[in-house]
């Protein structure tokens, strides 16, 4: 069976004045899968979503979304997608119910009243339904946003940082909804800053850096590319350089020295590195150790390793 792609982009570019927000984005999301776009602030995630949802026109490149050309048939694309994002919002002056009814009308859903009630219920919004949205908490609001996107089942759902700043209960509800949609065959493209979120939801992750896809793969494949973060704390500043030499050899990466904290650390390129080996080798080199540890890679570590980018992850 040949793979059909719900989102297929080639060389998408977008410039804002001097800033190149997207510098040739190639993305292939098979139908019925969840794709996580992972990257630091400013990597181009939101711009990618805005282009793929017809909110912005690309300066160069092409893309097909739900089988239609983004630039030539934007109306056809809009008929088949839904967007929930940081800057794509419901109306704060209306109540939750009024919002859903309005969007149901715009979608020409016949039984708008029943569909609205059903979604309010499903997202735990029944109680807040008749309050103005401006009084909602962040979590309630995001759930309403998502409900508005699901009034008519989209072929491709775009979620731009759907859980940023949410409490765990709201986050879990959104995660559950994404899984359910995938079960029913909807393709989901979500951007996130959280490795954990991509890890739990995505079939594939596209690591975006400086407007390009730096790496793609399943979460497991990406994590396997990056080993643990190895760190050693010494008792004597004079031993820092010796410790760094050991870490350099074991991790295959250039360690960072922190003289004030008497610490040396590096992200390992070797996934097989163990704590006993780290301690043994440091001890054998005569490093007076106060502490040594290995911790799972963070998103920062993955970025540092795979893109060489030192941009902080907010």
């Amino acid at each position, binding site marked *: 069976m040949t793979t059909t792609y719900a989102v297929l982009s080639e060389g998408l570019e977008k410039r804002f004045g001097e800033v190149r927000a997207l510098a040739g984005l190639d993305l292939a999301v098979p139908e019925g899968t969840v794709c996580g776009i992972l990257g630091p602030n400013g990597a181009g995630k939101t711009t990618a979503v805005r282009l793929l949802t*017809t909110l912005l026109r690309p300066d160069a490149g092409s893309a097909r979304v739900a089988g239609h050309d983004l630039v030539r048939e934007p109306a056809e694309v809009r008929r088949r997608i839904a967007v929930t994002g940081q800057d794509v919002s*419901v109306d704060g002056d209306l*109540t939750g119910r009024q919002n859903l009814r309005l969007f149901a009308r715009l979608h020409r859903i016949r039984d708008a009243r029943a569909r609205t009630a059903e979604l309010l219920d499903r997202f735990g919004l029944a109680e807040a339904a008749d309050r103005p949205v401006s009084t909602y908490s962040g979590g309630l609001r995001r759930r309403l946003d998502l409900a508005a996107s699901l009034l008519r089942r989209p072929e491709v759902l775009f979620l731009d940082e759907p859980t940023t700043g949410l409490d765990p209960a709201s986050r879990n509800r959104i995660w559950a909804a994404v899984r359910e949609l995938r079960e029913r065959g909807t393709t989901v493209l979500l951007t996130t800053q959280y490795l954990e979120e991509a890890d739990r939801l995505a079939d594939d992750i596209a690591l975006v850096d400086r407007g390009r896809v730096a790496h793609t793969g399943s979460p497991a494949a990406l994590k396997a590319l990056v080993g643990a973060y190895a760190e050693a704390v010494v008792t004597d500043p004079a031993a820092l350089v010796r410790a760094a030499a050991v870490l350099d050899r074991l991790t295959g990466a250039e360690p960072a020295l922190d003289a004030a904290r008497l610490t040396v650390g590096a992200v390992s390129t070797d996934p097989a590195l163990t704590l006993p080996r780290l301690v043994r080798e440091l001890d054998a080199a005569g490093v007076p150790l106060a502490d040594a540890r290995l911790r799972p890679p963070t998103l920062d570590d993955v970025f540092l390793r795979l893109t060489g980018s030192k941009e902080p992850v907010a």
Partner: protein
Amino acid sequence: MNTLAHDGTAMLGRQLLRMRNNPGLLILTQSMPVSMLLFFGYVFGSALAMPGAEYRAFLVPGLLVATAAGGIMTGMFQAAQDTHRGVTDRFRTLPVSRAAVPLGQAVADLVVTAAGTVPFLAVGLAVGWRVEGGALRAAGALGLLLLFRFAASWAGIWLGLLTRSEEAAGQLGGAVFLLPLLSNAYIPVEGLPGWLRTLAEWNPISAVTTALRDLFGNAPVPDGAAWPVAHPVAGALGWCAVLLAVFVPLAVHRHAHGKG
């Protein structure tokens, strides 16, 4: 066209719901012209050469038009707010007619303006303003007023989509408040120095105001005025046509394509 009507009606419904949910702002904007009529009519009116009652009759059409010009402010503020809050973008991702969103906003504004005109004119009648030119001409005056409001709204919507920030829209709104001051809305401009009088008479507000005064029969068309004021009905219609021809396409295009 069918889509536009359907989507436009839905958007109109949205705007009316917003006003129902938040009546405070509506009451404030609607009571503003009434208080201005009372302040200007009695405070300023007492210092003018024109007798008080005559000035108030002169002032009612002027205030109607000055308030209609405020459609720039209302349109701008609402469009900027929707854009800033991301509501505009949500509409833009939906399969709705591109013109429906601004059209719904402009029509809703028209409905509110029409409703607000009734209490204002009631106060006008109470302070001495009268319809002196017949019912048909008066209906024409009201139609012209609403057409001007509609045009002002579209200009405002375009500006709001352009500024994208509620603060900037608020500041620009202050400038809109000054527009009627350089027109014949509040005072006769025949006494101004020649160049200033010409400037004031080429202000669209002057043509529309003169047309209303003429149609209501409140004051004669001034002698020696610039063309749009000398031919006030044609001038006012012309101004509305120009404003609509410029700002409707601009606003629809801006809404459809956003900032990029």
